[in-house]
């Protein structure tokens, strides 16, 4: 009998993940000792952990390698997303500290769940194995289901969680079946080997593989809220606590795209001929449905949900285009989108008060003039989402559309552009309410909510910075994508 030797594991690639996991467990344990009703300390703990994770991730930028039998990988792509998720989750935590005061959510689990979800995201972005990706996705999702319903006394929160859960599990089933079929076709769940089969496999294998790919598409499409798999998003975004909605819009979507690109653009790239056309339609459908539906919304969270669907459509353009430029543009856009959307939801939170969520657009009348900072912030976020220069959202669209045009997708670009035009109407509609309508809703001063204020400033600064000086950030995205191709 062989000696029980500790398996030879390369720890380095796991470092950020381990830091986050450690933090999560720490927060989980600390929760036992924390005393309500104020759980800010837990939030701070989580924030420190996330910061630490970023700090450990940064020095790894020039490293590469795999670990745990090739299921997890250390590459720039993974690091890029790891940092993005940490930033996104960090900002969400920051937002939440002030947000939770306005709700009945009084449990430390909130932060734990966010961190758990972050673990899942990082797994999704750094894994090379379909099953691990699935695991990551489930870790992320299950935590998110719980988060959506964490305001237990709120009927809407319940309903959101329920819908999210039922549909999420339903879609997971398809994703899983897809993985099974891919496994059936290749005998593998490791992405690099699947790629080989996709490139050189027999016709039969490829057929099974492409059916599997279709089902994978459903699974990822659901998570990114692509039409026609988007229908959960408006309801869930509206019903979930606002900070959670922000988290879903920013983090979960990005994570889904991280896996999406790795699986499709990288491994299944050789099959692109099969799935590209389908994605083309999905992209067009998604952005159109998102934008057109958003036109008639009166609830700001629901509006932002549809906006989020529309943006998924733009992001899908990046997947359709693929290649270095398409993927890099997509990554850049994800960063931008995370900032914009977190900022926008931040403003939504800032306008809410205890018992008065102020989610109806009519409650926003005149707010921009009464609270100049919030007005300015929302203006910047809305215009950035609409793609008005020189804000980050515009640069994101610019990179995306340039990539698409260069790859010859002229019509796709034109449709996307027309869609942005439609979107201007409702984004600007928000500003109309804020600045041009008369109303009397009270707004709390920024000083009363320092964390929220800090989040908004950070998102604002990011949105401006990435708009005015996008080059270094885009280079980061490009270098990250480069590491995929290896």
């Amino acid at each position, binding site marked *: 009998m062989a000696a029980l030797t500790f398996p030879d594991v390369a720890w380095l690639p796991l470092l950020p993940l381990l830091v986050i996991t450690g933090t999560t467990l720490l927060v989980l344990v600390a929760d036992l000792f924390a005393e309500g009703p104020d759980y800010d300390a837990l939030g701070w703990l989580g924030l420190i952990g996330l910061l630490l994770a970023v700090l450990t991730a940064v020095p790894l930028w020039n490293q590469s390698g795999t670990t745990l039998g090739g299921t997890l990988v250390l590459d720039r792509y993974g690091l890029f997303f790891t940092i993005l998720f940490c930033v996104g989750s960090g900002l969400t935590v920051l937002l939440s500290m002030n947000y939770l005061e306005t709700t009945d959510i009084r449990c430390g689990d909130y932060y734990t769940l966010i961190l758990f979800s972050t673990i899942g995201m990082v797994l999704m972005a750094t894994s090379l194995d379909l099953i691990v990706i699935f695991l990551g996705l489930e870790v992320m999702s299950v935590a998110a289901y719980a988060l959506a319903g964490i305001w237990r006394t709120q009927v809407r929160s319940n*309903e959101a969680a329920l819908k999210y859960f039922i549909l999420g*599990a339903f879609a*997971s089933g398809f994703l899983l*079946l897809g*993985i*099974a079929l891919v496994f059936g076709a290749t005998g593998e769940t490791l992405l690099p080997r699947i790629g080989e089969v996709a490139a050189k496999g027999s016709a039969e294998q490829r057929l099974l593989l492409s059916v599997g790919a279709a089902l994978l598409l459903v699974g990822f499409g659901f998570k990114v809220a692509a039409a026609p798999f988007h229908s959960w998003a408006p309801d869930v975004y509206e019903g979930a606590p606002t900070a959670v909605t922000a988290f879903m819009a920013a983090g979960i979507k990005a994570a889904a795209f991280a896996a999406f690109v790795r699986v499709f653009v990288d491994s299944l790239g050789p099959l692109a001929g099969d799935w590209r056309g389908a994605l083309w339609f999905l992209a067009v459908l998604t952005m159109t449905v998102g934008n057109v539906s958003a036109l008639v919304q009166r609830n700001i969270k629901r509006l932002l949900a549809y906006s989020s669907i529309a943006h998924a459509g733009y992001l899908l353009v990046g997947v359709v285009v693929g290649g270095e430029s398409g993927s890099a543009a997509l990554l850049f856009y994800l960063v931008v989108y995370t900032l914009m959307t977190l900022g926008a939801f931040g403003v939504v939170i800032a306008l809410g008060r205890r018992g008065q969520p102020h989610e109806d657009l009519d409650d926003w009348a005149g707010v921009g003039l009464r609270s100049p900072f919030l007005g300015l912030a929302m203006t910047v976020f809305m215009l950035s989402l609409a793609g008005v220069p020189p804000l980050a959202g515009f640069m994101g669209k610019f990179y995306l559309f340039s990539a698409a045009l260069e790859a010859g997708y002229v019509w796709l670009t034109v449709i996307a552009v027309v869609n942005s035009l439609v979107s201007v109407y409702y984004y600007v509609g928000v500003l109309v309410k804020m600045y041009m309508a008369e109303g009397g809703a009270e707004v709390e001063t920024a000083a009363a909510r320092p964390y929220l204020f800090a989040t908004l400033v950070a998102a604002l600064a990011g949105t401006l910075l990435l708009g005015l000086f996008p080059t270094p950030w885009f280079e980061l995205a490009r270098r990250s994508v480069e590491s995929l191709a290896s």
Partner: protein
Amino acid sequence: MTTVPASWYAFLGVLLFTIGALGVLVRRNLIIMFMAIELMLNAVNLVFVAFARQQQTMDGQVMVFFVMTVAAAEAAVGLAIILAVFRNRETVNADEVNLLRW
């Protein structure tokens, strides 16, 4: 003794999956819908096992454990959510949970 071809199991799996999916669509009771989803996941398990047998690897069998674990976790959260809904709304009928729409 003739062996049943592995692909038959795979097809059976897919069939069960379909039944599960339809179950989600047609049953109104949230608990039953949830069970239908469980059926879908387990159907996939069957597919995994079938392919594993066909490919002569253990990998597929291992997957099943992962899936079962995940399903268990989902069940825990899912049932908690349904419970919460029932507590607030006193219904487990999917039709009646439509506060959020349009």
